[in-house]
């Protein structure tokens, strides 16, 4: 039933009158029988399982923070690095005194 909707191009309605008898005719002819039907059912099943997983696990809840967001501009300055660089920086200033 489901695989017809997902994989075939047949109308979904079951009433022959609504479908001009097309759907029932095809079914009677046995187009969706045997291995092809089984494969279609398998695909449809896996697709449904996948969509089910997305439906449950793929939803991410994002809560807005209640505090204002403060961006610390100098967060990238590491104290130990600054201490290590001090002598080097002093030397650099001496060597480029025109621009310091």
């Amino acid at each position: 039933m489901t695989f017809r909707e997902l994989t075939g191009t047949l109308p979904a309605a079951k009433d022959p009158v609504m479908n001009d008898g097309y759907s029932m005719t095809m079914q009677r002819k046995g187009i969706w029988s045997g291995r092809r039907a089984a494969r279609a059912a398998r695909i449809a099943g896996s697709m449904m399982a996948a969509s089910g997983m997305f439906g449950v696990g793929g939803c991410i809840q994002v809560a807005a923070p209640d505090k204002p967001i403060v961006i610390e501009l100098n967060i990238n300055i590491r104290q130990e690095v600054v201490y290590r660089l001090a002598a080097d920086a002093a030397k650099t200033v001496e060597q480029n005194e025109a621009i310091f």
Partner: protein
Amino acid sequence: MKRTRFTNAGGIALAAATIAALAGMPAAQAQSARSPAYTAARAAGQVGEQRDGYLGVVGSQSGEIAAMVRDINNQRRQVYTKASAGKSTIQEYAFTTGCKLIRDTRAGEKYQGLDGSWKTRGAGAPELDPRCP
């Protein structure tokens, strides 16, 4: 160039430079001192040292001053980029240098205080970032 040599050769190059300096010889690649325009702008408080290691325009100044500051900052960035390679980020190197530059300001010169505003260096110690060495 020179910095790299110092880093690689370590104490030998440094010792050589020290000897050269003691002998009163100019170091091989030392650049000339500040331009008169830069010196005057500093003394007049038209430009100031920022906490990030770059020069800033104090208030509204002429286009020449602004252009000079931009030019100096471009050169500083180049120096910071080269000097920080393999040691730290450019930002960290610039910040460390900024600490020294603010500390080295002379009375009357401007620097950026902890609140971000321009301060005039007095006789005492300047306001320094707590992370400064």
